[in-house]
């Protein structure tokens, strides 16, 4: 079970969503995908996409500089 890191800090719509989807495609079941970004809309929409893809969101964290979302493939 690997942990895959996707860094989309500084990227704007639709790149964070697309990069998340590309990572999900490459991941194996059981892998954890960690996405780090700064785009505000994507912080809301990545969990929406995860739900649409029937994947579990493990955590959503945010500090002053960026947010981190973990998804279970």
């Amino acid at each position, binding site marked *: 079970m690997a942990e895959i890191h996707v860094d989309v800090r*500084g990227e704007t*719509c*639709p790149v964070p*969503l*697309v990069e998340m989807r590309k990572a999900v*495609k490459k991941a194996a079941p059981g892998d954890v995908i960690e996405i780090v970004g700064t785009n505000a809309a994507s912080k809301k929409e990545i969990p*929406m*996409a995860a739900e649409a*893809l029937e994947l579990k969101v493990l955590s959503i964290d945010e500090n002053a500089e960026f947010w981190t979302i973990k998804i279970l493939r």
Partner: protein
Amino acid sequence: MAEKTTIIVHSGDLDKMYSALIVANGSLAMGMEVSLYFTFWGLLRLKKGGLEKGPLSKMNFLGLGRMMIKSRMKKNNVASLERLMSDFKELGGKIIACEMTMEIMGVKKSDLMEELIDEYGAVGTYIQEARESTITLLI
């Protein structure tokens, strides 16, 4: 079967190409299938080296407005159409080129980026795609 988005890409304007490809990539990212049907001015954007060539649909000002928008996009780190197109293909998006437009405008297959195009078709092809789609748009 996954839900599907079908978009008629009629305009070749830069801003509308962005709208089409952003909606397309968003749909793929959220687990849908996508077909893009390129026709009229949109089809010209599939010519070799043509993807980024469109003017702005409004306030183009002979290319000055376009230059301004382009530089603001760069500043805000907006992805290029080339990148959006390559992501679109990587995520399994389908591209259909309108054969009638090719005839009217004298565009040959060899003029187009054939590696991007999955199918050449006419209205029937679009209808078959659209009738099984939950989102259909004309851009």
